[in-house]
């Protein structure tokens, strides 16, 4: 490749569609930019301490920039600080980090939850019971989303949480929880999910339960369901995995001396619902049945990513 930079990548969740898309976006963007000679990817299931190890290994590998999806905003501060000291550009994607020298390009998780929940409570007519299906207990993204959800809940005093469960962001667990909940016969008027969404719709359809409004993420499976499942009212809140590509772009810009005005760039989520025509059109445009159902359909971010769909789907970085 003609590029001159080596970029290190650190990610701590493996085997989940969103994260896989993020990594592929990073690779595709590195390739499309033409500026990257080599990607150095540390991609495994681990915790903040393990991510520190990966970051330090990347420092040893003398990369020019590190793009990191932090396991925890505060937990990897020491490693990022060392990277900056070593003259490495640090960009955190998806979540913020507390290290002040790092640049952040992040999906706004609190806003993600707030937007979806607010729409849902509106659909429910401002009152009723909601089934609140969270992510993994103890994960920082989950607690951020919880803040947003609670904020929306505070605005709708007549909406009550019928039941709160942790899906662990696992499809099987979420589906079983939904089915168990249905079996209790507890009345409910809406479901908020933390991105494990298509199995929930499946569960509702399979058990011929009344189709209440469902909020999920822009995963290909769910987006497809929003236009194909009859009588389903729902909304997909975008949470693009392609933020990884944006992170690479930002890192390259900084390496090229074009520093952004602010340390933090927040990519605010959008909401596509199938209750309005405008939403329907967006859903239709976004729907992509050829993608794996776990992949978010927003495979690119305007102004930030320059790769083609073929490139991200090929999931090849420079030199591969």
């Amino acid at each position: 490749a003609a590029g001159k930079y080596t970029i290190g990548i650190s990610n701590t969740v493996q085997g989940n569609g969103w994260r896989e898309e993020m990594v592929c976006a990073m690779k595709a963007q590195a390739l499309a930019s033409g500026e990257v000679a080599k990607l150095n990817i540390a991609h495994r299931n681990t915790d903040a301490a393990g991510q520190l190890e990966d970051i330090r290994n990347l420092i040893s590998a003398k990369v020019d920039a590190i793009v990191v999806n932090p396991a925890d905003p505060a937990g990897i501060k020491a490693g990022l600080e060392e990277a900056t000291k070593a003259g490495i550009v640090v960009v955190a994607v998806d979540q913020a980090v507390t290290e002040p020298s790092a640049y952040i390009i992040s999906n706004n998780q609190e806003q993600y939850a707030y937007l979806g929940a607010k729409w849902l409570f509106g659909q429910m007519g401002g009152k009723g019971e909601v089934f609140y299906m969270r992510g993994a207990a103890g994960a920082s993204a989950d607690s951020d989303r919880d803040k947003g959800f609670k904020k929306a809940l505070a605005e709708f005093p007549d909406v009550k949480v019928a039941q709160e469960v942790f899906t662990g962001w696992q499809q099987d667990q979420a589906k079983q929880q939904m089915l168990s909940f249905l079996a209790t016969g507890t009345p409910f008027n809406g479901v908020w999910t933390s991105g494990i969404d298509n199995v929930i719709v499946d569960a509702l359809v399979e058990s011929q339960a009344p189709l209440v409004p469902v909020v999920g993420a822009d995963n290909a499976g769910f987006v497809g369901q929003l236009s194909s499942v009859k009588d389903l009212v729902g909304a997909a809140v975008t949470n693009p995995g392609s933020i990884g590509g944006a992170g690479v772009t930002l890192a390259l810009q900084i390496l090229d001396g074009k520093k952004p005005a602010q340390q933090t760039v927040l990519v605010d989520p959008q909401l596509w619902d199938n209750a309005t025509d405008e939403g329907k059109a967006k859903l239709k445009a976004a729907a992509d049945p050829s993608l794996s159902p776990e992949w978010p359909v927003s495979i690119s971010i305007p102004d930030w990513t320059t790769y083609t769909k073929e490139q991200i789907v090929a999931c090849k970085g420079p030199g591969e």
Partner: protein
Amino acid sequence: MSHFLRRQGWVTGLFALLIVLFIVTKLIQPGYGSGDFGSLARAVLPYAFAVAAQTVVVIAGGIDLSVAAMMALTSVTAASMMAGASEEYALFVVPFVLAMGFVLGAVNGMLIVVTRVPDIVVTLAMLFVLQGAALLVLGAPGGSAAEWLKALISGTVPIPGVPDAIDAWLPKALLVLIVCLCFVWIPLRRSRLGLSIYAIGSSELAAFRSGVPVARTRIVAYALSGLFSAMGGLALTMSTGIGAPIPGPYLLASVAAVVLGGVALGGGKGGLLGPIVAVFVLRLVRTDLTLLAIDPNVTAIIEGAIMVAVVMFGAFITMRGRQ
């Protein structure tokens, strides 16, 4: 005699492997220096404690599936106690958390002795209990660590009279590891208690007949495991500055390193040095894979293959030796 040689031979072989890996690392990355070694030592720290915790119970003929959960619980406890507290308060937190690990480990042991449920099931159940407790302590990653604690494992130890170029290779994290392990392990190995732990793992009946209090020794072994896990939990808090309630990947890593380190899963054999060297080997392999920018998906295959190959090799040697 031959047995003794063979056992030491395994550790020596691991050491040789480690040195070869260092040379390989230096070849891959000529700039690999003392700072990078310090990083390695810090990465090793939590794994080493987890492995120490597992080693003690495996030598005693058991297994502890709750190691990682115990680390998570002790880590969040330490981090949440230190959040917003004074620096001096940490002087109280550290012994408290260590004692907590020791007591919870003893609870593991007591449950095994009293309920007579197989250790693997008891510690599996405790895995859930400890995880739950960790979530109750901290619902999301958070808390903080005293600055002096964090400083304890970063940087190097200046030794007066020794040129910087040399003592730069003595990271504090390594020193902490050595001090903590030696502080517990060496007196233990030399004591009758230590012998008793080996004895119950080697042959429970013979141990009992030699006058070893089997139940008590088993409880102590699990308590020590809890203590080492607590050290691991503290190491996590020290290196990240926070506590996270979700356990890291330390359980399976600990079992793997124990076996790689030449400790028989049946019990009674092996020492702490082998597993610790095995941890260094495994961490350094990961460093090398990162330095080489190997496809991350292939690294899982390589790590699994190394584990299986080394253990098969060991089994092959013992089979040869038996014939």
